[in-house]
């Protein structure tokens, strides 16, 4: 009887993998990790089109610097999306943290205090998002859409939309504009630190397990004794702090903070995470995937500039790449 499923479905060969290196296996692997395939194609294409310019060390460092904040925020966004939520307020948070942090740095001269205030802004916005979503029971899309407006408005109000110029070399060099070991841009150094921490958190910590379970099936997680509300709030707080950190890095790199900083950034970040294989429905996704996704977005933007295309073209191509990647990805 075909309506009734055979009871011995466990013989299903699904997920029993064969690791020999054949064309077919490599192909399947790339289909599962669509961002990696996209990265390879993007790099090959721009290398071919621009000669050595694209692959030069100088340009690689550029891509690294440009992608730093996307990668940092994509790491946080991975956790938020794995828990089956989304945060649209990240670009606004980035801007408010940059503004307030810079204001404190310029008025007090203390880099430490500035950074502290900036990160605190992120923490508060994240906490507010988390509480609205869990205790207020507002879908995260709406809660953070509202916060996006509120926080951007606050950011504009700090200086009545005027930029803050920062003359504090210590602040420049510790976050965005210096380098470590003589060759590694400091923003890349911070990005690596964030990547390591979030990777361990999501993959090896108790919190990580709870995030996956909450996103995979909130009801079941709750029935298992997972404090799902607390888990979701934590992901939003981490996201807020990482957005704020990104804002400080940007301000430090530009030696200035503008209230309009980062507008539209959430699209880059969400695109990177989705491209990296994280499921919008929750329960599935990795930091490494998001890293590669972010690199694809950064390489695309950079390569198109090298080839002399306008920012409009960047937007168009970025949109197409996302649609193609999702279409092409192996669906379950």
């Amino acid at each position, binding site marked *: *009887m*075909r*309506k*009734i*499923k*055979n*009871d*011995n*479905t*466990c*013989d*299903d060969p*699904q*997920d*029993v993998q064969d690791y020999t290196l054949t064309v077919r296996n490599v192909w399947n692997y790339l289909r599962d990790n669509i961002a990696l395939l996209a990265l390879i194609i993007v790099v090959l294409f721009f290398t071919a089109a621009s000669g050595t310019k694209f692959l030069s060390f100088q340009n690689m460092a550029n891509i690294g610097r440009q992608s730093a904040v996307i990668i940092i925020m994509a790491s946080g966004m991975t956790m938020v999306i794995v828990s089956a939520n989304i945060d649209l307020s990240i670009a606004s948070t980035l801007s408010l943290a940059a503004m307030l942090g810079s204001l404190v740095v310029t008025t007090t001269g203390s880099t430490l205090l500035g950074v502290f205030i900036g990160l605190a802004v992120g923490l508060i916005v994240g906490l507010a998002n988390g509480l609205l979503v869990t205790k207020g029971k507002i879908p995260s899309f709406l809660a953070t859409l509202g916060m996006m407006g509120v926080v951007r408005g606050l950011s504009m109000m700090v200086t009545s939309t005027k930029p803050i110029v920062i003359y504090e070399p210590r602040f420049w060099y510790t976050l965005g504009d210096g380098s470590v070991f003589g060759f590694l841009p400091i923003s890349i150094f911070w990005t690596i630190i964030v990547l390591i921490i979030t990777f*361990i958190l999501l993959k*090896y*910590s*108790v*919190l*990580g*397990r*709870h995030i*996956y*379970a909450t996103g*995979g*099936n909130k*009801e*079941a*997680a*709750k*029935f*298992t*004794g*997972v*404090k799902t509300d607390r888990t979701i709030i934590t992901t939003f707080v981490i996201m807020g702090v990482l957005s704020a950190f990104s804002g400080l890095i940007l301000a430090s790199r530009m030696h200035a903070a503008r209230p309009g900083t980062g507008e539209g950034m959430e699209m880059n970040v969400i695109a990177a995470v989705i491209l990296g294989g994280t499921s919008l429905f929750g*329960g*599935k996704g990795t930091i490494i995937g998001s890293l590669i996704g972010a690199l694809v977005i950064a390489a695309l933007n950079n390569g198109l500039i090298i080839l002399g295309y306008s920012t409009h073209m960047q937007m168009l191509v970025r949109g197409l790449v996302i649609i193609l990647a999702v279409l092409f990805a192996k669906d*379950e």
Partner: protein
Amino acid sequence: MQNEQLLLDMRNIDMVFPGVHALKEIDFQLKRGEVHALVGENGAGKSTLMKILMGVYTSCDGDIFLEGAKVTINSPEKAHELGIGMIFQELSLVPQLNVAQNIYLGNEVSGKTGILHDRQMYENARNLMKKYNIKEYFSVYDKVGKLSRGYMQIVEVLKALSRDTKILIMDEPTASLTKEEEDTLYQIILGLKKEGVSIIYISHRLEEIFRNCNRVTVFRDGSKVETKNVNDVDMDKLIELMTGRKIEAAVHVSTIEAEDRKEPLLEVRNLVWKQRLCDVSFCLNKGEVLGITGLMGSGKSEIARALFGVEPLDSGEIYIEGEKVEIQHPWQAVEAGMALIPEDRKSQGLVLSHSVEENICLPIVSDYKNKIGLFKDKKAGFKVKEQIARLAIKTPTPKQKVKYLSGGNQQKIVVGKWLNKSPKVLILDEPTVGVDVKTKSELRTIIQGLVKDQDRGVLLFSSELNEILQLSDRVVILYRGSVIKEYTNCTSLKEDALHRAVQGLV
């Protein structure tokens, strides 16, 4: 009855599922304007027969005649066309739409251009209510989401009637209704009868059958036992027909002496929740299985959910080992030493898209962490393998996603995830529903094994009386949200006594 004409005649219906002979040459006749009850235990074949009539199952042997003409029902749409409608337990209404819009959903009153004729639709809906004598409990403009469960059921009935239904199938229509709503439904059934609509009425509550139905057909193990006029039988006779002579099949296996298990583990006092639980009290002792049973809607699932902090109670106290515990969230229940194996394993017990390993580990991740909160993968992995072996979970690897496993194996995983946690009180809500026979007996063995540990106790909520008898040391009977009977000695208990008790006869 005035018109004794045959409306539906199903002959020699035979159906085989892999491993199960679900229906064995069933003959079933329905007269015009009668209310015909189908009774039998779970899995006796009632639902299968109805699904054949509704065109859900299509590959069966036998013939179906409707008003004397042979028909082939190969899809639910075809069944609707022929005038056969079914009211499902899970209602198929859109809460955001109003009553009239729901009644005509998918069958809208419109012109050729597709523009709705709203006024006509409301007019039709009102006429429909008038025709079947449905008083003004609600207006056709009311949003369905705001109606009570019982009135929703009436809207569902109206929806079926709007399509010239000749045969209406009702599956446990009163399971989630209050007494008052029930009476309303009975009024409507009376009205339908007068209009010549035939009703097939499936219910486990036998008193309803005596109240509403003309004839009753009893099913047992896929066979039709008998069709009788309701006036010719009484409840005892019906129970006898339903259970047959198989009562000795339930062999009670409790090995613990009554004196050994006097120490209370979980005490529940005066639980009240909405209108569903009225003053429920019971006590689970160490080292025993307490069976709690009752018909659908008697309050079983509500107690399980309330104990585990899923639904906040209106009032009531819970004591574990003599100490009062406050439980508002499931995590508090877990910390208090309880574990729940929920009725709906797919939506509440498992993360289907995750692996066997991840699912089994979930309750214990917090117990296997080092100082900085990192999870000890290897140690927990060892625990997972232990459970897979102990419960004989059939999976190619611990990394297999649970959605690819069979229902029985999935249920074992839900059990396995709690065994690592060693809960003091294990709450099982319908643990063997939708599980194949072999796994069923395996699961029962596991449950019996659990209480060998004298510090633990098992609360078994089940509507399978056979299972209750086999596993429980004591049995509590629920009826309409109250405890009406407690059996302290199960060795001499017979299944037909339980059957009578769940019907409220004690």
